[in-house]
């Protein structure tokens, strides 16, 4: 059974997670330096989250279809994303086995993996809060 019940739940959790990452000085500073625009495209359930660091000043997070063209797109099942944020996904293996699709200059995005690792500690809290609200 998939972890997220529907698109709204998935996008709300990811939106809140990225908002908290944006409020973390260490993580946000390094992400903003990349000036990347990364779009995460999820399936089962469908969902789309765009993280825009392009102005180098503020991380802008948006959900659903966007006009802005991402520099890097990452596509995966929502459950893979959930496991990733729990620190349970072996990213090299997920790429080799085709569980994650990446379009664009992926090296730039992959270089940010160590930067966002502290968010693994934030994610369970974000999920539990949302599950409580929705319950």
């Amino acid at each position, binding site marked *: 059974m998939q972890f997220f019940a529907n698109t709204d739940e998935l996008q709300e959790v990811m939106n809140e997670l990225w908002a908290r990452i944006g409020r973390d000085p260490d993580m946000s500073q390094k992400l903003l330096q990349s000036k990347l625009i990364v779009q995460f495209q999820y399936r089962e359930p469908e969902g789309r989250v765009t993280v825009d660091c392009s102005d180098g000043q503020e991380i802008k997070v948006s959900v659903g279809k966007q006009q802005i063209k991402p520099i890097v797109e990452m596509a995966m099942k929502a459950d893979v994303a959930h496991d990733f944020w729990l620190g349970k996904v072996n990213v*090299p*293996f997920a790429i080799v*086995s*085709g569980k994650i699709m*990446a379009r*664009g*200059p992926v*090296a730039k995005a*992959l270089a940010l*993996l160590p930067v966002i690792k502290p968010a693994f500690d934030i994610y369970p809290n974000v999920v539990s809060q949302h599950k409580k609200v929705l319950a």
Partner: protein
Amino acid sequence: MNPFVFHVPTKIAFAEGAASSTADIVKELAGSRALIVTDKPLMNTGIVEQILHGFDDMHYVVFDEVPPDSDVDCVNQAAEVARAEECDCIVAIGGGSVMDTAKVVNICLTLGGELLEYQGLNNIAEQLLPLVAVPTTAGTGSEVSMVAMVKDRAEGKKLLFGSRYLAPSVAVLDPLLTVSLPPKLTAATGLDALTHAVESYTAVISNSVFTDSLCIDSTKMIFEYLRAATKNGGDIEARSQMLVASTMAGVAFTNSGVGVVHALAHSVGAKFGTHHGIANCIFLPHGMQFNMDAVVARYAKLSRLVGMSNSSNDSAAATELVTAIEKLCNDCGLPRRLRDAGVPELKTADIEELAFLTGSDPAIMFNPKECSPEDIKGLYERAY
């Protein structure tokens, strides 16, 4: 045991003189109009001409403009030629640059549209046109790999394409094509193959028993035959063993990844144009020393299995493997320091830039130990 996936999408055919049957292989794949991708130096050796005799009864066009470090412009030119000639298959005859170019041309030819749309990993989801790879060096493994890299000179970037559909349909391994390779290139490309084997064997988060077995045997073959192939280019047995070892290591690394040595070599190659095999030769002992504490048991096991040590002490056996690699590089006349490979004095800004490039190279993901920017800078300083 770790979970794993293992693909070998490429049919591999080996024989002395196998290249003369390339046209028959193309016909088996239902190809009728072939784009032959190669380079000028190879055209001048007469190797390509011999292979082309078999194509006399079918339509083909030769594109021989591939530079040593191929780029998007070259890909677009070749794709234009192929479209104009309505080619339905591609034959790559050459080294890594030629084969990678052919793979990316195949994307343009099969899928059309904007090439940049296909940059990335697992981003191509359908079968491409038949591609037959005929390697003329023994090292890159591109004849079986599922990745290709070309430069975007306008943007000053390397574009990475990775998908199982990129792997050639058939790899034709003919040792006779490698006999004219000069000693230094023989040695350098051989060290590239050895680095694939060693790094793939220690890519402990993504390797498997399948990749391990290929790594062990290819490492053994390279230790046994690289000196002979370098010393006497006409030694067909040595050339055969090296060509097969290189392909075996290619199958291994395309399934399990490489590591920090390749990330360092890609970066120094991008900044200073250092030959990939020579860069790997310089960085391999340093990379192994760096990874030693994380994978000492793996190095020790490999060292014993390939006959470089009979010590029961892991640290001693692993060190003997590093020493054996250093001796192999020395025996083959390869440079051991970046300064001896034409790299100018590394200033602080150079090392900063190289560390950034290395830290963002996808190869580093598969390294068995995390590398901080300071670790990477230290590796450059030691290798210089």
